[in-house]
């Protein structure tokens, strides 16, 4: 290595991961084929709520290639196995048992009812058609308001209610602020809105897949999962397996976005079946199965009120949520809206705040984490209502925000929801964004178009967001009744030849950990970027970890890597001092070398590694290893923030929205690799914009998902998205030694309200003050011409979609 290497951290390195992926040398779970492997296919319920009165599998068992057919009772005769919910948000939360295969009743369309095991996937699929299930229909519960209405039919009769839990935060009770009722009743202005967070599908591109090999005492499970470590522990607990006899591998995983943060009935069923047959079993779902059976995201009804004095000073904020859990609770389902509770107050100084949330069951696919998980919902509501408050007060929406946000010299700042924001500079990000966007110029053009009654109106949308990420300090999770901690593990192995293996508990599925972690370690140890290998996603090599979600990998897992490196250096220092016959205190470590201060005597860390391997001459009491591990538990969350500005053109004749420009300036703290950061921003923005304009999981009145394919659920294509202008400001996080904050969710959290604010701003002079998402041309047109802001609604319209399945209900109307 050269003496003064350019630091790796901050370099736009192309990714180590890519070479395999661009040449097709991939290890998707579905690529795995083992000797003697059999295939599982699942029969799924076509109906949303019914009693199963009989299942006849005899004809299916006669089909060619069919080895076995199982029902729920076959896999779990005692009816004892239930998928884990790791976040009971209240002590009295109602948590229905979610079986591997339905037992007694089906509670959503798409719930698995029986499993066929056959020689080939095609034969398994064929046999599904021969299974005869008798269903006795039960009343279908759909829609949040319906589900909580008096006398509503029940999803789970034995529970006596459709409400799972109610969770409340009140700043007066917490001592972090005043009483919101009092604040509101003594304020000049109160603005109240009901916002609907439509249901979304995470739509990772790789369908879920699992392979279980039971042929050794330690069972091996490959799964397209974000959470191999959590899966290992949870599968052991759920099925009563000895944990040390379970190995989980997440090989290449094709995206997750929260959608693969799960412990699924399919995974557990595959384990049980494999054990019964003593053969490797594979299950790979079709996209149509993903759409109905992998968890969805969002789906909240948000009642929000904000109060202020005439000059724009916010005095209080009150939020009441209904959150649709679907038919069961996923692993963190109920916790998703709770994560949002801390973010409604956003970047603003709000003296009084009350939040309540009721989690509700309906006969739909369950909802759980989806990119941002609770925080996009909160950010949407606060950033939308800030625009509404500005309109009410006749203020420029940016001025209103500026009047209320935390100033850069007020950090650290403890918010009304009790979080302490360590750092930030909202002024700097906003100034840069306004300049890149040409805010004043666009406002002028908007005024001109309005004055001349242009058919195409221009709107400007703002979102000055922050988020809490880097999940999470274990003690905070404990105080929220979460079932686990939020630490992360890393280990570094110094090999005799001077190469380095880094083990991480974070489990990537597109984020580029191999590249970023290599950059971090290269700087820490002064070894070459290419001399480092990152090991992850296999509980045998990476035995400890809490995986990847909540923008935690870098801010928690990356710091664990730094801590492990520090331990390596501390061990090496002792040996280096011994080898050079110097005092440890006289050694300096830089660029991979220990140098005796004031001399040119030095030794490289690779030489120390070799000397330790030989172990011929080590100082007294020193173990012959430099290998080190660390478990890092953050003290605080990290708080990325940014200012996003969107200019939207709205054709008032057709309701068509065109995004003319989108500028984001994000402050995510220190950056390890700007190329990766930019990619995360782009992808995040695309998903947030998609919520605003295109995507919605729509159910018809029978509880059938009508947007159940990629023909009907509008994941945007390249044609549907603009080019983004992404830039950054940088305020180092003070909560960790790298100064990093996390970037995985920022774009998704920030962009949805920016887009909707822009569209509403474009047509506000038509009396429009809200339009429900997604802002399909039909909805925008109706808002402008008919004053309908709540166009659509559950089951009524495939938002912006082709609606090709829902012909009975008019599709896209």
């Amino acid at each position: 290595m050269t003496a003064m290497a350019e630091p790796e951290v901050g370099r736009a390195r192309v990714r180590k991961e890519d070479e395999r992926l661009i040449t097709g040398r991939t290890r998707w779970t579905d690529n795995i084929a083992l000797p003697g492997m059999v295939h599982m296919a699942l029969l799924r319920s076509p109906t949303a709520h019914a009693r199963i009165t009989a299942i006849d599998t005899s004809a299916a068992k006669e089909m060619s290639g069919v080895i076995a057919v199982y029902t729920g009772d076959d896999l779990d005769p005692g009816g004892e196995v239930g998928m884990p919910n790791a976040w009971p948000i209240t002590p009295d939360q109602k948590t229905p048992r979610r079986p591997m295969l339905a037992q007694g009743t089906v509670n959503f369309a798409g719930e698995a009812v029986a499993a066929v095991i056959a020689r080939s996937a095609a034969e398994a699929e064929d046999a599904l058609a021969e299974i005869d299930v008798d269903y006795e229909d039960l009343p279908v519960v759909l829609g949040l308001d319906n589900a909580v209405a008096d006398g509503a039919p029940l999803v789970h009769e034995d529970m006596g209610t459709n409400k799972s839990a109610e969770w409340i935060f009140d700043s007066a009770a917490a001592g972090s602020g005043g009483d919101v009722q009092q604040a509101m009743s003594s304020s000049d202005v109160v603005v109240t809105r009901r916002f609907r967070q439509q249901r979304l599908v995470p739509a990772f591109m790789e369908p879920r897949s699992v392979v279980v090999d039971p042929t050794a005492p330690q069972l091996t499970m490959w799964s397209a999962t974000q959470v191999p470590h959590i899966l290992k522990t949870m599968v052991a607990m759920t099925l009563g397996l000895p944990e040390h006899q379970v190995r989980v591998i997440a090989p290449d995983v094709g995206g997750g976005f929260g959608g693969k943060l799960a412990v699924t009935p399919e995974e557990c069923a595959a384990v049980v079946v494999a054990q019964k047959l003593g053969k490797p079993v594979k299950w790979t779902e079709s996209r149509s199965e993903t759409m109905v059976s992998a968890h969805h995201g969002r789906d909240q009804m948000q009642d929000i009120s904000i109060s202020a004095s005439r000059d724009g000073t916010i005095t209080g904020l009150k939020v009441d949520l209904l959150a649709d859990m679907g038919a069961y609770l996923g692993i963190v389902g109920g916790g998703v809206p709770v994560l949002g509770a801390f973010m409604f107050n956003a970047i603003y100084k709000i003296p009084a705040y009350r939040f309540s949330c009721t989690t509700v069951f309906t006969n739909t696919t369950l909802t759980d984490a989806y990119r941002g998980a609770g925080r996009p919902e909160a950010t949407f509501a606060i950033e939308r209502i800030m625009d509404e408050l500005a309109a009410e007060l006749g203020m420029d929406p940016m001025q209103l925000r500026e009047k209320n946000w935390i100033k850069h010299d007020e950090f650290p700042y403890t918010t009304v929801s009790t979080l302490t924001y360590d750092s930030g500079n909202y002024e700097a990000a906003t100034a840069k964004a306004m300049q890149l966007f040409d805010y004043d110029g666009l406002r002028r053009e908007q005024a001109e178009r309005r004055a001349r009654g242009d058919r195409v109106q221009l709107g400007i949308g703002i979102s000055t967001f922050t988020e809490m990420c880097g999940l999470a300090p274990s003690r905070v999770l404990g105080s929220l009744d979460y079932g686990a901690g939020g630490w992360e593990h890393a280990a570094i192995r110094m090999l005799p030849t001077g190469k380095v293996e880094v083990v991480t508990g974070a489990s990537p599925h597109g984020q580029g950990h191999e590249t970023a972690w290599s950059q971090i370690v290269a700087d820490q140890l002064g070894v070459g970027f290419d001399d480092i290998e990152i090991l992850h996603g296999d509980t045998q090599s990476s035995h400890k970890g809490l995986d990847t979600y909540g923008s935690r990998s870098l801010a928690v897992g990356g710091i664990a890597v730094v801590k492990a490196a520090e331990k390596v250096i501390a061990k090496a220092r002792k040996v280096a001092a011994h080898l050079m016959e110097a005092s440890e205190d006289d050694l300096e470590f830089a660029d991979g070398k220990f140098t005796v201060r004031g001399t040119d005597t030095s030794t490289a860390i690779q030489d120390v590694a070799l000397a330790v391997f030989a172990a011929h001459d080590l100082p007294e009491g020193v173990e012959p290893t430099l290998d080190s591990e660390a478990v890092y538990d953050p003290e605080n969350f990290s708080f990325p923030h940014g200012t996003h500005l969107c200019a939207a053109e709205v054709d008032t004749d057709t309701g068509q929205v065109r995004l003319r420009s989108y500028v984001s300036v994000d402050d995510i703290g220190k950056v390890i690799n700007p190329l990766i950061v930019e990619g995360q921003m782009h992808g995040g923005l695309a998903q947030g914009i998609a919520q605003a304009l295109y995507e919605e999981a729509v159910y018809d009145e029978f509880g059938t998902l009508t947007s159940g394919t990629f023909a009907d659920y509008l994941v945007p294509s390249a044609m549907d998205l603009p080019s983004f202008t992404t830039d950054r400001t940088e305020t180092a996080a003070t909560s960790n030694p790298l100064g990093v904050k996390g970037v995985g969710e920022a774009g998704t959290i920030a962009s949805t309200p920016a887009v909707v604010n822009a569209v509403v701003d474009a047509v506000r002079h038509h009396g429009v003050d809200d339009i429900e998402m997604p802002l399909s041309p039909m909805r925008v047109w109706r808002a402008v011409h008919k004053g309908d802001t709540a166009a659509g609604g559950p089951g009524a319209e495939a938002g912006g979609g082709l609606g090709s399945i829902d012909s009975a209900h008019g599709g896209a109307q």
Partner: protein
Amino acid sequence: MRITVTVDGTSYTDDVEPRTLLVHHLREKLGKTGTVVGCDTSNCGACTVHLNGQSVKSCSVLAVQADGGEVTTVEGLARDGQLHPVQQAFRDNHALQCGFCTPGMIMQSIDLLADNPNPDEEAVREGLEGNLCRCTGYQNIVRAVRDAAGHMRPGAGPEAEQVAGGERTTTGVGGDS
């Protein structure tokens, strides 16, 4: 039915069921797992390969329809360890994250550049409309395709795959390119 298909330069003769999709034949019979399946409605493009010089969604072609044909997958693009310019550009421009859409994106991009060697942004976006990516927001994919255009010699589209491979057989018939 017995079919013979040349895939990435190797000729394979197999018995297949008439209903077998080309993508399943590639993945399950021939071990060409670089090509993937992302949907069941021919919307995602993850399965895109070249059949006789044209990009096709291999989930919407029956294996028997490829009989006598020549298929190139993402695994057959690199030559003597040299990446195809489009592969290289995807890497250089960070045009992939999870990489699941990438084989299809690359194959479709090569086809699009064959038709239009110097596409503007709009043309790239239009040409990739049938390929979904959930990770990248497309911006770097668009950048990569335009970057590749600058590095590709004129006409180095799918046809070039059939003549450039020194070792490769060229038994494909019925090509309409």
